[in-house]
């Protein structure tokens, strides 16, 4: 397909009066200077920092691997001791899995998604900045362990009982546990942003069947992050509490089960593989059509494949546990699902091949990386099907065959697409074209040395070489394969360095890229390169899947829509406004206010770092300042701003179908959607804990787990149910409700939540439940979860009360009240479910 004349958004901007245009740019300008650096919350600068930090971590993680390969090059080498080797393989895995791949793809999404979707920023810019800073502090936290000589050394999977205090007494695993929690919270924040962005902040007309494949992949990935990362956070809480001696979830002597960790970890860990792979597949589905000069073959089936992989990935976790002693039939269920996931992957694969086959391929560097991906991922996928078969897995479990398999999947299937994406999108980000000559060297060296490094590992694995050994005896037949792997690994490292050199050369000397150097099809290419901070001053209207190929103009074709969109074309000019559209059809609905700068995301992430460091070394000297700084951060984050006042003065908040309105509260507002994402995360955590409750109880000597005092439990339930009418009172429409009624609702809800906390405390203390057993630990944890939930409700009620006191008629106050009501209702449901589990279900255990 030949790309038509350039139809960028810049020519549309000419339609805007100059003064209005300048005002718009001023309101969207970035803060400058040293202090401004910490105030920046916009997707473009934060996205660049995020990408740079994550890429640096890729280089660091890779360097750790090169050190390991030096150690393993020949038998019985003593460059690294066993303990150092343990630390290196733990930190290599942790860095690559948690600190490079996921953050990098979230960084790319942070930068690119608004451009691809045709919107001005992500829905919660402060959360974007917070995610970045929290991630950075998490990284610094984990890597600071090297300074103290206590780097994590229990593997990136941290299996107990090895990782319990008894066997790992140092702070090594505490650094891992706590640092990872911070980074995971950052990942959840970014996932919430991505979901709401894609569902609600697309260009008008970009209905579900016109969403670019990369955005589809990111949407499914972000949903998977919510459901996969939450169990891991719960699991790391369990592990840390066990390590502190508070609980005994994994301690067999107290009725705990180490295998519980494996279930929780792999419920996260297997989807994690696809969380990394799906965005990579999205990049490939973006790059191949552009360089084949034709649309992707069978868009609908590729979307189906992404969806199917997203679902199926949650049903495969047991294939990491084939050798742990499970019923044969259960293994059969998971083996079947493991085999079947090859089907949607195959559909995508054939779609890519058919696109190239029927297109007119141009062998630019980006396309070469995509082709390299096809080759490497095919090998990784085939060995994946092999290890999905139970008998074969038993033979190669914990051997280098598995190391080879997952590196083909993760480097071949993820890093190669990342490089394809880098070469494809960097001209947009930097405004300069990368060197094709260096790029081709970069590709071919990476491709050749990758296979030199990892293919021999299949053979050494089949010859019986186990994973994670720091040295080996000569004469076992592994020597030559290890030497070849080491040569390949260092060659691969050199090839990556060549890519870095190309990047640096590009930043200094690369030729100007222009708007659309590839003749690509999606909206990011309608903008200047690099795009201005005030992106999409004139919002494009989409009525095709490939707007840059199929549309003659990005202007609305319908006068009615043009009229509706008029207020947001180069506007508003006294506050930042983003367009909200309907989920299915991308019908323009409303405008949301977006903050322009804030130091408080940084402040809050500092608070997190202090609190988590305080937890690590168990000192109030860090915990107390952390809580105070956190309080300041939260208060500053949610305080009303002048630009919000401007927005309220300029636009009406009442919903109407005739024109755009200011979405402040209710389902039209992003805050309402964000609250639902939070509730989803909280529900996932609750159900993870409930699953752990039943798992710990099943077959345990302490079966069923102990029951807390039933009378107080019932009283707590009655109290929680009583709060429902109170919640209804304070969440009523502020226009038609007397202040006294709202205050009564707020006060009663707060009192009843405090009562629930007290009654559940009494329920525990007036029983024999103790955290010295595994059953008791899970009962206390589930009850504690209610305290945390009710505590959050109380904090939100304070915020709603402050609004009701200082600005009783402000719609923002009602928004806080409505969102608080959602969480308060959830708190009631939380206790109802917990009550059934803790107090009633033991009767069914027999």
């Amino acid at each position, binding site marked *: 397909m030949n790309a038509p004349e350039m139809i960028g958004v810049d020519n549309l901007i000419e339609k805007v009066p100059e003064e209005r245009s300048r005002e718009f740019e001023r309101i969207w300008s970035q803060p400058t200077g040293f202090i401004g650096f910490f105030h920046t919350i916009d997707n473009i600068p934060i996205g660049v920092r995020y990408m740079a930090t994550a890429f640096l971590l890729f280089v660091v993680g890779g360097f750790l691997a090169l050190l390991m390969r030096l150690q393993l090059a020949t038998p019985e080498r003593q460059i690294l001791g066993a303990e150092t080797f343990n630390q290196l393989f733990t930190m290599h895995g942790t860095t690559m899995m948690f600190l490079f791949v996921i953050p990098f793809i979230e960084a790319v999404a942070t930068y690119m998604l608004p451009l691809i979707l045709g919107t001005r920023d992500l829905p919660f810019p402060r959360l974007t900045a917070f995610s970045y800073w929290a991630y950075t502090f998490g990284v610094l936290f984990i890597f600071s362990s090297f300074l103290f000589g206590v780097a994590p050394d229990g593997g990136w999977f941290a299996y107990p009982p090895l990782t319990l205090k008894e066997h790992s007494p140092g702070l090594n695993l505490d650094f891992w546990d706590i640092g990872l929690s911070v980074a995971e919270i950052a990942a959840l924040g970014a996932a919430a942003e991505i979901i709401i962005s894609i569902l609600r902040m697309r260009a008008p*007309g970009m*209905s*579900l*069947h*016109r969403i670019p494949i990369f955005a589809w992949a990111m949407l499914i990935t972000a949903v998977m992050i919510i459901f996969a990362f939450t169990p891991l956070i719960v699991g790391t809480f369990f592990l840390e509490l066990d390590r502190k001696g508070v609980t005994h979830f994994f301690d067999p002597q107290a009725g705990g089960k180490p295998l519980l960790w494996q279930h929780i970890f792999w419920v996260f860990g297997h989807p994690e593989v696809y969380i990394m792979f799906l965005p990579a597949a999205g990049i490939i589905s973006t790059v191949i059509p552009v360089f084949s000069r*034709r*649309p*992707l*073959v*069978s*868009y*609908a*089936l590729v*979307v*189906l494949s992404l*969806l*199917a992989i997203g*679902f*199926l990935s*949650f*049903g495969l976790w047991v294939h990491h546990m084939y050798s742990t*002693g*499970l*019923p*044969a*039939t*259960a*293994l*059969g*269920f998971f*083996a*079947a*699902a493991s*085999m*079947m996931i090859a*089907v*949607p992957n195959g559909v995508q694969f054939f779609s890519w091949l058919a696109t190239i086959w*029927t297109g007119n391929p141009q062998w630019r560097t980006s396309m070469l990386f995509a082709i390299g991906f096809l080759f490497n991922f095919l090998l990784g996928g085939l060995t994946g099907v092999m290890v999905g078969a139970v008998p074969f897995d038993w033979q190669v479990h914990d051997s280098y065959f598995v190391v080879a398999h997952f590196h083909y999947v993760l480097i071949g299937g993820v890093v190669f697409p990342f490089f394809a994406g880098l070469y494809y999108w960097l001209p947009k980000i930097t405004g300069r074209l990368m060197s094709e000559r260096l790029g081709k060297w970069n590709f071919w060296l990476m491709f050749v040395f990758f296979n030199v490094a990892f293919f021999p590992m299949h053979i050494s694995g089949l010859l019986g070489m186990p994973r994670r050994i720091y040295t080996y005896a000569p004469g076992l037949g592994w020597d030559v394969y290890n030497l070849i792997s080491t040569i390949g690994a260092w060659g691969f490292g050199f090839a990556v360095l060549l890519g870095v050199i190309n990047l640096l050369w590009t930043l200094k000397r690369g030729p100007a890229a222009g708007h659309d150097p590839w003749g690509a099809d999606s909206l990011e290419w309608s903008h200047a390169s690099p795009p201005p901070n005030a992106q999409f001053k004139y919002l494009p209207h989409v*009525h*095709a*899947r*490939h707007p840059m190929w*199929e549309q003659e103009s990005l202007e609305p074709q319908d006068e*009615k*829509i043009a009229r*509706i969109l008029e207020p947001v074309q180069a506007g508003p000019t006294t506050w930042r406004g983003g367009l909200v559209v*309907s989920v*299915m*059809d*991308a*019908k*323009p609905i409303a405008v949301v206010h977006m903050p322009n700068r804030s130091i408080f995301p940084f402040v809050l992430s500092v608070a997190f770092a202090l609190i988590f460091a305080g937890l690590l070394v168990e000192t109030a000297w860090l915990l107390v300042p952390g809580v105070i700084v956190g309080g300041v951060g939260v208060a500053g984050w949610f305080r009303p701003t002048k630009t919000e006042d401007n927005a309220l003065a300029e636009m009406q908040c009442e919903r109407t179908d005739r024109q755009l309105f200011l979405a402040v509260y209710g389902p039209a507002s992003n805050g309402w959607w964000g609250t639902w994402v939070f509730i989803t995360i909280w529900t996932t955590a609750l159900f993870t804990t409930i699953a752990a409750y039943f798992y710990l109880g*099943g*077959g345990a000597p302490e079966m069923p787990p102990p029951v807390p005092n039933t009378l107080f439990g019932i009283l707590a339930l009655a109290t929680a149910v009583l709060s429902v009418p109170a919640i209804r009172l304070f969440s009523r429409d502020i226009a038609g409700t007397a202040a006294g009624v709202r205050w009564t609702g707020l006060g009663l809800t707060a009192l009843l939540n405090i009562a629930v906390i007290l009654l559940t405390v009494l329920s525990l203390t007036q029983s024999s439940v103790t955290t010295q057993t595994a059953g008791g630990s899970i009962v206390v944890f589930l009850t504690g979860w209610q305290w945390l939930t009710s505590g959050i409700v109380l904090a939100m009620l304070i915020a709603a009360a402050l609004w009701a006191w200082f600005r009783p008629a402000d719609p923002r106050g009602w928004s806080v009240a409505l969102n608080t009501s959602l969480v308060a209702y959830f708190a009631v449901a939380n206790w109802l479910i917990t009550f059934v589990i803790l107090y009633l279900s033991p009767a069914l255990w*027999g």
Partner: protein
Amino acid sequence: MTESLLGRTRLSLWELLIGSIGGASAWLLHLGASYLLLTIGCNENWPGVRLMLIALTIGLVAVGLWTGLFAYRRIESTETDADWAITLSSGLSRENFMMVVGTVSSAVFTIIILAQGVPPLFLPLCSEV
């Protein structure tokens, strides 16, 4: 059926949800319920676990087939003017797109439910390996 600014939407949200992710949900339910049934049944020595697993598979295969048919019946015929035009946005409306995805997805997930229904027919139920 509702009206919207960008055209008529003929299917309700529930129809779209059932049609597009009904099959996948049936599979998730099948895996979760089968694993739970097997684990509890083996722990508690329940009689007839094998029969219950087979019944569960038959029931959820039926659900998968029904959601596939449900989605298929909601695809409106559309004409395309070129061999590969179906890949262009002009080829499918948003609702047809969702129902095509749903039909194929239900077929795939029904096959997976069937595949997961096979082990209880041949393998020992509760013996750990």
